[in-house]
Each structure stands twice: as C-alpha cells, then as structure tokens.
C-alpha cells in the first residue's frame, strides 16, 4: 500500500493536522525482485527417467551395494530373501501363485514382443506435439520480426513528414489565394454594380429631361400655331404639291 499525500480538497481541519511520517513510503513486507531467478525459460525435461533393472528395482540399489558385495550382491540378496520367504511360508504358494505366474508370463511376453513398437508410436506422438509447439513458437517469432520490420519502415516513412507538411502548406496557401481572389472579384462586382446604378440613374435622368423638354417644346410650338397659320400652311403645302406634281408630269 502507498499512503497518498493529503488531498487538497480535504477540509482545513484535516490539513492543519501534522503530516504522517510515512508519507510516500512504500509499505512492503516482502522484498521484490531480490534474486536473479525467473520462471522462464523453463528447463527442458530430462531425456530418460531413472534406470530400473528388470523393470522392478532401481539402479541406485545395485550401485548402493556394489562397493561391499560387487556385481552379484543384490542377486544373492534377492535369492536369499526369496528362499527365506518360501521356506518360512511368509509367501504362501496357492492357487493365486499359479494365476500370477500365468498372468506374468503373458504380460512379459507381450512387453518383450510389442514394447519397441509401442514406444516408437508414443515417441511419434510426442514428436508431433513438440513439432506443433516449436512451429507455433517460430511463427510467433517470425510475426514479431515482421512487426519489427514494419515498424522500422514506418519510422523511415515518418522521416518524410517534411514533404507532407510542405505539400499541406502549399495547399493551404492556394486555398487562401483562391479565397482572396474570389472576394476581390466579389468586391469588384459589387462596386461595379453600384457605379453602374449611378450611371444608369444619371442617364435615365438626362433622358427623361430631354424627352420632357422635347415634349414641352413641341407642345408649345403646337400651341403657338394659330388656326389662321394652320390654314395658310395647309394651302401653301397644297400649292407646293401641285407644283411638284406638274414638274413630275413634265419630267415623265
């Protein structure tokens, strides 16, 4: 457990208390990581088990008796023990002995005949398991190697970030330029529209003034033509027309 320092949000009364001495000290009753030993990699299994002679007696027993009695010692011990058991009838010979003898004969014959085949089969099964495990291990090692390669490539790619940033900066500059020009065009159009309006207004005003003036002049002129003048001008026009028609006749 680690004792946290006093939280700033604690009430003032708590904060005014003297601080505990063990603030910041790691409370452990067990030392951590003091020895070099680690659980992996696990040591491999031994190849062969302990030696057993005749399938029943460990080899260590023969080695134990060898200094004192030599090679035949344990066999003499076995024979003596057997005779003692039989003669004192601690081991009783009855129907079960016969049954045991038959069973043991069959078993030993079977082991001697089929032992190696069964052993080879079991070894093959083991080999397959081992091969699968080793293949898995190699695959994961390979996958991690590939991951390392990919990571290195990514690091190399990251070195080109300057080009990327330059391209992005160019893009942004172009956008800004485009935007600026668009707005400039907009401003120009708006101003032109307003100026055109003013020009059109002036033209219109001028045109209207002209028309009005012409109308006024015409109206006054028409008004000034008295009926007398009108008759005189119509008579004169008729006489001119007659003269013209005469000259036209003559020309034809």
């Amino acid at each position, binding site marked *: 457990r680690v004792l946290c320092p006093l939280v700033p949000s604690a009430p003032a009364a708590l904060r005014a208390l003297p601080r505990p001495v063990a603030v910041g000290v790691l409370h452990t009753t067990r030392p951590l990581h003091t020895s070099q030993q680690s659980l992996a990699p696990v040591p491999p*299994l031994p190849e*062969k088990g*302990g030696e057993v002679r005749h399938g029943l007696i460990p080899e260590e027993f023969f080695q134990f008796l060898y200094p004192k009695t030599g090679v035949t010692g344990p066999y003499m011990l076995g024979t003596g023990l057997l005779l003692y058991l039989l003669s004192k009838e601690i081991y*009783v010979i*009855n129907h079960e002995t016969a049954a045991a003898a038959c069973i043991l004969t069959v078993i030993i014959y079977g082991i001697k005949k089929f032992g190696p085949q069964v052993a080879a089969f079991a*070894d093959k099964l083991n080999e397959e398991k081992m091969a699968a495990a080793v293949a898995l291990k190699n695959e994961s090692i390979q996958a991690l190697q590939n991951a390392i390669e990919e990571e290195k490539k990514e690091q190399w790619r990251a070195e080109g970030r300057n080009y990327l940033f330059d391209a992005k900066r160019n893009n942004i500059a172009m956008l800004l330029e485009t935007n600026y020009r668009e707005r400039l065009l907009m401003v120009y159009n708006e101003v032109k529209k307003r100026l055109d309006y003013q020009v059109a207004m002036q033209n219109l005003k001028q045109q209207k003034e002209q028309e009005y003036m012409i109308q006024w002049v015409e109206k006054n002129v028409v008004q000034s033509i008295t009926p007398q003048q009108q008759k005189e001008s119509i008579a004169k026009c008729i006489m001119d027309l007659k003269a013209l028609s005469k000259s036209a006749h003559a020309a034809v």
Partner: protein
Amino acid sequence: LPAAVLLKDTKLMDVKLGQLGSWLAMRDFTPGGIMGAMRRGYDRYYNKYINVRKGGLGGFSMVLAGYIVLSYMWSYSHVKHDRRRKYH
C-alpha cells in the same frame, strides 16, 4: 573449520545411527508437515521416473509391484490358512 550443518537440515542417509532418534523427533509431524512430506515424495518419484521425454515401463511397474506387496500384506491373515505346514 567445515561449515556446521544443523541436524535439522541433514538428509536421512547422512544421519548417524546414534542421532537417528533425535533426528526423528525433530521432524514435522503436523498434518501440514505430513502432507508436505507426502507431496515431496510424490514429486521426487514423479519427476524422476514419469515426467521425462522417453519414459520406460519401470516407473509404472514399480508402483504396481508396491501395490501388489501392500495388498499381499493386508491379506496375509487370510492367506495364512493355505499354508502347507503348520510349523516352520
């Protein structure tokens, strides 16, 4: 001066005959101790004869032989009656 080994830490084969009584008295006879001793014995046998790459028949047949002997001892009082001679 050779390093003195406490009697508690000596193995059974290194204990002298005279020290056998005191050595036995020092052993742990609590239930936990007995279970620990059985577990250690089992682990020793298992790791020596069975938990190997190419195990043989010996590991299993020794256990079978031990069982045969034990069951003969348990049924001796019954087998006694098949003896051929009464006095040996």
